[in-house]
């Protein structure tokens, strides 16, 4: 019994609880699922939307394609697709 308590204590001291706690995994997964649910897009369609947007934007500006973020926010009675296309730093 006592050993168990000590091991638990050590685990608590040495692990970063925030990163591994399963509730955070649940929350992140949910947020991703809800993007697709809210705008009724499948993961595949979502990916093509992203690629087509990237293609259009790339015609005019230099986009950092590795850091694109898209999400759907809901505030009261309004929903918005928020897409974030960071620009490449000019050398």
């Amino acid at each position, binding site marked *: 019994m006592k050993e168990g*308590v000590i091991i*638990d*204590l050590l685990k*608590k001291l040495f692990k970063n*609880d*925030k990163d591994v*706690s*399963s*509730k*955070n995994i*649940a*929350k992140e*997964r*949910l*947020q991703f*699922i*809800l993007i697709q*649910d*809210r705008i009724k897009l499948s993961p595949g369609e979502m990916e093509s939307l992203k690629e087509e947007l990237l293609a259009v934007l790339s015609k005019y500006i230099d986009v950092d394609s590795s850091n694109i973020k898209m999400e759907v926010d*809901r*505030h*009261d*009675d309004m929903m918005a697709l928020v897409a974030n296309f960071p620009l490449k730093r000019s050398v």
Partner: protein
Amino acid sequence: MAGKAIVITSGKGGVGKTTTTANLGTALAMLDRRVCLIDADIGLRNLDVVMGLENRIVYDIVDVVEGNCRLEQALIRDKRQNNLFLLPAAQTRDKTAVTPYQMQELVSKLKEEMDYVLVDSPAGIEQGFKNAISGADQAIIVTTPEVSAVRDADRIIGLLETEGFKEPEVIINRIRQDMVQKGDMMDIDDMIEILAIKLLGVVPEDENIVISTNRGEPIVLKPEKSRAGQAFNNIARRIDGEELPLMSLEKDTLLKKIKRIVGLS
């Protein structure tokens, strides 16, 4: 009298819609309101069982809409509260036996006699759900702190908003504070942030619910024995217009905090 009709819905099954309906109805009746519960889950009726009224059913909701009996004949008076009534679902028919229009008519007739009409919606988003929400003035969504239940709740909120429900409210059911504290269950703030909806109340997981359902006695009848009973009573008072703070799920004393940090709880 012009009462208020409230639909209790969730999308996902098994999150506690029927238990919530039975308890809120009983609690509102204990506040001296006239209340009618409608079981809109045609084909899978259960509200009568949770209320312990299954032996008193003579007519059901389908008998009423088909004209086999008058509405008053189908209403079952509760054993304990004489201002509480149940309109049971039919067990041998399916959801198409009632139309949204018929439901609307029924609810508005009942509103003339009652302070509150609570409609227990079936799981799902098909006809049964559409029936249950027609005629309701307000919607309460029941969910639990699980990914699947929250996802379905979000879908239902979207559908309710499309149907013109102004401010749906959510009840978070079956929360386990011990798991929340370990970081293994989403907390209230997480869920409200994700769903972006008004919180009506929180009900802790409570094994007394199983016992009370076994007996067919809503848990609010003995609130001193259970946290869930107290939580449902508080929610009923909030529905009735009282401003009540959220019940704390657990007293977070200094000792407990220290224990948690040191790893003893």
